[in-house]
């Protein structure tokens, strides 16, 4: 690796890239024609083309958000982004049929090992589209549908048409409009009534090309009484120019269903991660967002849950790490729209080396939602004087029977803690690593153990050279 490359990559282990061997790569820039071309190249039904075009016009007209990080948002050059790149002519079911450098990449990020040991199925997306897909036969025979979104639209158009954009309409925000216009890839997952998917299924999103825009679209439907754990991971090469990742994720948990959606976001710092994630939770269902944001230059993401049915439960556990040149503007939104619904939000952030973390949360209880309970805990750990943490909690409580708890704390690592740990043989970096691993433990304990170990290692690397 050259010194220059090392400067860019720093302590980021996934900053490498393969040669761009794309078979189709659109010229940079966005227009109605680009949107139509994406739809045409995928042979989509006309209704989808229409949705895309409508969303494109909304995107053009829609103002940029004035919050989060307007400085960075207003600087995005949408003409400098590639909106579609195809790496292989089809999605493969056997790694042998995937180009070797792409195989190796998914090896290096650890996906193939996880596939072989404890996952029920995976989708590997490389730039715009899935290059590999697998699902265990026993899941398929139970009627579980797990596909990349493009295949989902081809093979199950009626389901997609019924639910696409119903949880996150294109008019929701500027980046939801952009995603709806140019979406490509993502996951389509349907769990039939009463089926419990024991092993997690995973999608991995890898950006490879420079100036790439990745706009995956995910739709998960858990039918009555079913349950599933879906995991997504993502990494990208380190470039000096900006890449844009703008996903939309829609979840629907029918009566009594349970969806857990875990994210390990570790983009390189040149990626802007502007994502809309939302779930509808019907009667007695549970939706859990287990969300981590370790990478990217700017993330703006607030996983949301609409508790639409009585007795539904929302759980959001999110952690963010903001290091040098990073702003993690994250949080959670929970809407109690029905009676006897409950929610639990835990948010943890670490700021270091001038990094900035922001918690932005919304809790809403509507007048007809009686006897709701909600607990919000927000903890920020600031590791040095240059770093920053802000909290913007909003509560709209329309029903006096609601039982609400809100705790927030901002802390620093104390000299006593460091002395104590060092007296037990840990050098400063190891001591800091233990403290931050402990701080994120409410998140990592929710992960499958292999990923929890990886997450702790990742944080330990982030603590290297942290003490002057």
């Amino acid at each position, binding site marked *: 690796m050259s010194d220059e490359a090392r400067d860019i990559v720093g302590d980021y282990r996934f900053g490498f890239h393969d040669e761009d061997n794309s078979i189709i790569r659109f010229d940079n820039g966005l227009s109605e024609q680009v949107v139509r071309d994406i739809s045409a190249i995928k042979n989509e039904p006309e209704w989808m083309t229409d949705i895309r075009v409508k969303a494109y016009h909304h995107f053009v007209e829609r103002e940029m958000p004035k919050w989060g990080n307007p400085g960075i948002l207003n600087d995005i050059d949408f003409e400098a982004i590639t909106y579609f790149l195809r790496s292989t002519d089809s999605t493969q079911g056997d790694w042998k049929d995937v180009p070797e450098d792409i195989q190796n990449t998914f090896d290096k990020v650890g996906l193939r090992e996880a596939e072989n040991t404890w996952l029920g199925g995976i989708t590997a997306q490389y730039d715009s589209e899935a290059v590999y897909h697998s699902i265990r036969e026993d899941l398929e025979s139970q009627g579980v549908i797990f596909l990349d979104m493009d295949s989902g639209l081809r093979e199950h158009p009626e389901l997609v048409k019924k639910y696409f954009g119903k949880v996150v309409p294109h008019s929701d925000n500027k980046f939801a409009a952009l995603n709806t216009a140019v979406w490509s890839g993502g996951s389509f997952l349907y769990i039939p009534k009463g089926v419990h998917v024991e092993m997690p299924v995973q999608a991995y999103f890898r950006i490879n090309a420079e100036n790439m825009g990745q706009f995956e679209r995910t739709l998960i439907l858990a039918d009555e009484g079913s349950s599933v754990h879906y995991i997504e991971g993502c990494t990208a090469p380190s470039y000096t120019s900006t890449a844009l990742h703008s996903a939309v994720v829609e979840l629907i948990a029918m009566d009594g269903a349970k969806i857990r959606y875990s994210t390990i976001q570790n983009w390189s710092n040149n990626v802007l991660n502007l994502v809309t994630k939302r779930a509808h939770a019907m009667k007695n269902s549970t939706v859990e967002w287990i969300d981590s944001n370790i990478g990217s230059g700017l993330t703006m993401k607030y996983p949301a849950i609409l508790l639409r049915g009585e007795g539904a439960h929302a759980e959001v556990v999110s952690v963010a790490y903001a290091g040098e040149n990073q702003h993690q503007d994250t949080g959670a939104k929970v809407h109690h729209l029905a009676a006897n619904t409950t929610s639990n939000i835990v948010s943890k952030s670490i700021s270091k080396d001038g990094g900035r973390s922001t918690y932005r949360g919304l809790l809403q209880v509507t007048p007809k939602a009686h006897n709701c309970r909600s607990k919000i805990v927000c903890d920020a750990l600031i590791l040095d004087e240059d770093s920053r943490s802000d909290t913007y909690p909003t509560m709209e409580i329309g029903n006096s029977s609601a039982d609400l708890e809100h705790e927030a704390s901002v802390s620093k690592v104390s000299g006593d*803690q460091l002395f104590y740990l060092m007296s037990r043989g*840990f*050098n400063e970096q*190891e*001591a800091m690593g233990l403290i931050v*691993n402990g701080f994120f433990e409410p998140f990592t304990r929710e992960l499958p153990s292999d990923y929890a170990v990886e997450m702790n290692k990742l944080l330990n690397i982030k603590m290297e050279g942290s003490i002057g």
Partner: protein
Amino acid sequence: MAEEILNISNLHVSVEGTEIIKGLSLTINKGEVHALMGRNGSGKSTLANALMGHPAYSIDSGEITYNGQPIEELEVFERARAGMFLSFQYPSVLPGVKVGTFLKKSIEAVRGEPVKQREFRNQLKAAMQLLDMDRTFLSRYVNDGFSGGEKKRLEILQLVLLQPRLAMLDETDSGLDIDALKIVSKGINQVVPHAGCLVITHYQRLLEHVKADYVHVLIDGKIVKSGGPDLAHKLEEKGYDWLEVKNEV
């Protein structure tokens, strides 16, 4: 022949510009238990923290050698890796860090090599039995929500597992009921034959269970009197006043 572990000669220590230890000398050999007694504010904890290398405690003059080597240049973790151990009066809370994980990592850090899971499990089991500790301890977070007694027990568990050459126990007996005191003493006594031991305490009661070879009385940063176990009894009867008066004469 006695094997010297710690030698302190004419030590002066200050905290934020205030001198606390004002010329203290002490030698501890392997297998010896030295009790350091004194009132609050006499400098007992300051000595322990300074020996362990706490950055807020500055050594203004005097010398400390450990195993015959000066330790001034060693950082806190290097002292720990060299076999020095301090049982804290007020150990820190480490939210989210499980006791089991912490103990294993600590042993590995001190030894400088990975420890086999099986070996660790066996050592841990024996030590926890000795200290009458429940296995549920291991999945709790370090000192998080612990009672005073539980904290002290965890300190002594670390003492037993880390097998130090120099064990410094800062007010380990405070806040313990008589049963806990006996249990904690079992842990200390297991370590004593292999280590030099500095026991800092207010009271004589720990010394009923841990046999001190020497008792030192610290008043205003100096050892004003040293003696055998009898001295502790005498202090219990008479308090510190008789020594203070003598000191002034």
